[in-house]
């Protein structure tokens, strides 16, 4: 019928929409990147320049700040990066895998306390954690786990928010028919979960892995309570240490440099994992 006219006007609106999108995206990107720009600019400026206010132009102290950070024996940057990587990677992996497992357990099976279990997990999520932090410290002291990475990693197996996301994701995108088909083919339950369900959940896993990694990477409060020795400290603890330096050594240039160094690895991890999210599109087609 009027197909040709329709496609023409459609093309025009599409082009207009696209332009609108680009303008909005560029504005938002500018807003986001601007903070990074200021961060990087500040890491090239000296303490006193930073103290006296903002500048759009970089200073000349990039190398000085970098050297100051790397040469400070009390701030073992590389060890800090290593420690942060260990803690964040392990806790991200554990929380994502076990949350998916728990979510699948509640989604796919019918058992007596299923609803209660789901409700309990949701309730846990609504309990503020601030108060229990010191109780947690006393607990791990009694368990002899102080100054160890374990109390920072193991508890992430029970991550209610990650679980909830996985459960909702399964609700939205895993038809039980697939599981039943696998059972008919004689697949074991763990096999079905690991080889069939997990691949379908890849976008969700990647998303939550990123979030878990970043929040663990930037976490200061609990690690600062748990870790003592210099060779165990994570990056946020080292940054806090730079920030509480005495007047002789207090150096905002160093602080900003350290923050910049701390951000690099997360950006890399993010870029790596975001590919899985994009690839999720292709996987989406498989299951229909």
């Amino acid at each position: 019928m009027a197909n040709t006219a329709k496609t023409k006007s459609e093309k025009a609106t599409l082009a207009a929409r696209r332009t609108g999108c680009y303008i909005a995206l560029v504005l938002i990107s500018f807003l986001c990147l601007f903070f990074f720009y200021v961060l990087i600019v500040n890491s090239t400026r000296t303490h006193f320049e930073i103290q006296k206010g903002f500048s759009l132009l970089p200073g000349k102290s990039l190398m000085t700040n970098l050297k100051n950070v790397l040469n400070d024996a009390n701030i073992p940057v590389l060890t800090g990066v290593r420690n942060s990587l260990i803690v964040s990677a392990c806790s991200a992996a554990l929380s994502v895998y076990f949350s998916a497992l728990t979510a699948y357990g509640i989604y796919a099976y019918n058992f007596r306390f299923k609803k209660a279990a789901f409700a309990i997990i949701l309730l846990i999520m609504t309990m503020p954690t601030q108060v229990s932090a010191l109780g947690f410290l006393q607990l791990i002291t009694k368990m002899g786990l102080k100054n160890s990475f374990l109390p920072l990693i193991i508890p992430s197996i029970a991550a209610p928010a990650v679980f909830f996301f996985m459960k909702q994701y399964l609700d939205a995108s895993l038809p039980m028919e697939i599981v039943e088909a696998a059972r008919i083919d004689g697949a074991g339950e763990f096999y079905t979960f690991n080889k069939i369900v997990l691949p379908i959940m890849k976008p969700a896993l990647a998303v939550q892995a990123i979030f878990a990694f970043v929040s663990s990477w930037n976490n200061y409060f609990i690690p600062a309570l748990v870790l003592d020795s210099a060779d165990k400290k994570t990056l946020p603890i080292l940054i806090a240490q730079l920030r509480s330096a005495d007047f002789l050594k207090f150096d905002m240039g160093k602080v900003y440099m350290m923050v910049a160094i701390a951000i690099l690895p997360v950006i890399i991890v993010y870029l790596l994992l975001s590919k899985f999210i994009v690839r999720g599109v292709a996987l989406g087609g498989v299951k229909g």
Partner: protein
Amino acid sequence: MGEKTNKKGSISYAKWGYIFIAPFFIIFAVFQLIPLASTIYYSFFEYYRSGLKVIGPSFVGLKNYMTLFATDLPKYFGNTLLLWIIGFIPQIAVSLLLAAWFTDLRLKLKGQTFFKTVIYMPNLIMASAFAMLFFALFSDNGPVNAVLVGMGILKQPFSFLNTVWGNRGLIGLMNFLMWFGNTTIMLMAAIMGVDPTLYEAAELDGCTPNQMFWKITIPLIRPILVYVMITSMIGGLQMFDVPQILTNGKGGPDRTSTTMIMYLNNHLFSKNYGMAGAVSVVLFLVCAVLCVIVYMSLTKEDDGRSKAERKALKGGKK
């Protein structure tokens, strides 16, 4: 949820349910339940430290709760809700829009990887470092004021950090910037989980992008939307670090940016587990009630309807 479970209910599989959820509950019991239980327990006690001297614990019944309700608790609750709303509304709106754009196959936006990366980046900066940047940008002699005055929008610098709405606005802005990327990514992941053939079918039927978004995307990602709503609400009610850092722990001016958890935190100065426990319990109850309401209203009838819609669409396609 109910009907689904009935369908596949076969007793031989039940034990797998327990096995699959066991690790979560064991770890939870060990590392969280004990501290949580003591939080509730001590809310009925007078238990704090005066310097290094431990006072109590001695049982006082509901005294902590009575003290609590005699304070400005409603004010802090109101602050918390307000601060959450001014951050959350732009956050969910922008996130939905962006997620729709990124996943709209017809738009074919170029540079998507770049944009997707960039919007999440503010979340990579530690809140404390982010706040340092905010202080630099929004101080009375900072660049934002310089630009606003330079453009003639303001006659004299606006003291963002010393006025009620300046402070609240900054807290909202920072929350928005830190979290809209997260929400966008989650929504994107959800939209990508939607069967693409549905869109193809809809397109053949002559649906506009608008219609597809509201009629297909939104109903199908409803579970994730519920997730976003609930976690954001919980996160909002437990809002702490952003206002804490941006107001230097003061929650000012005149305590107008003091959130519930900041109030709770004030009690932890003296390790006042009694009062802090009472605040926690109240907050927990409020949170739980709100979550139940939101969860019910968003899932109750929809669960059936969205399934029906999905079936109808699938049927239509065939």
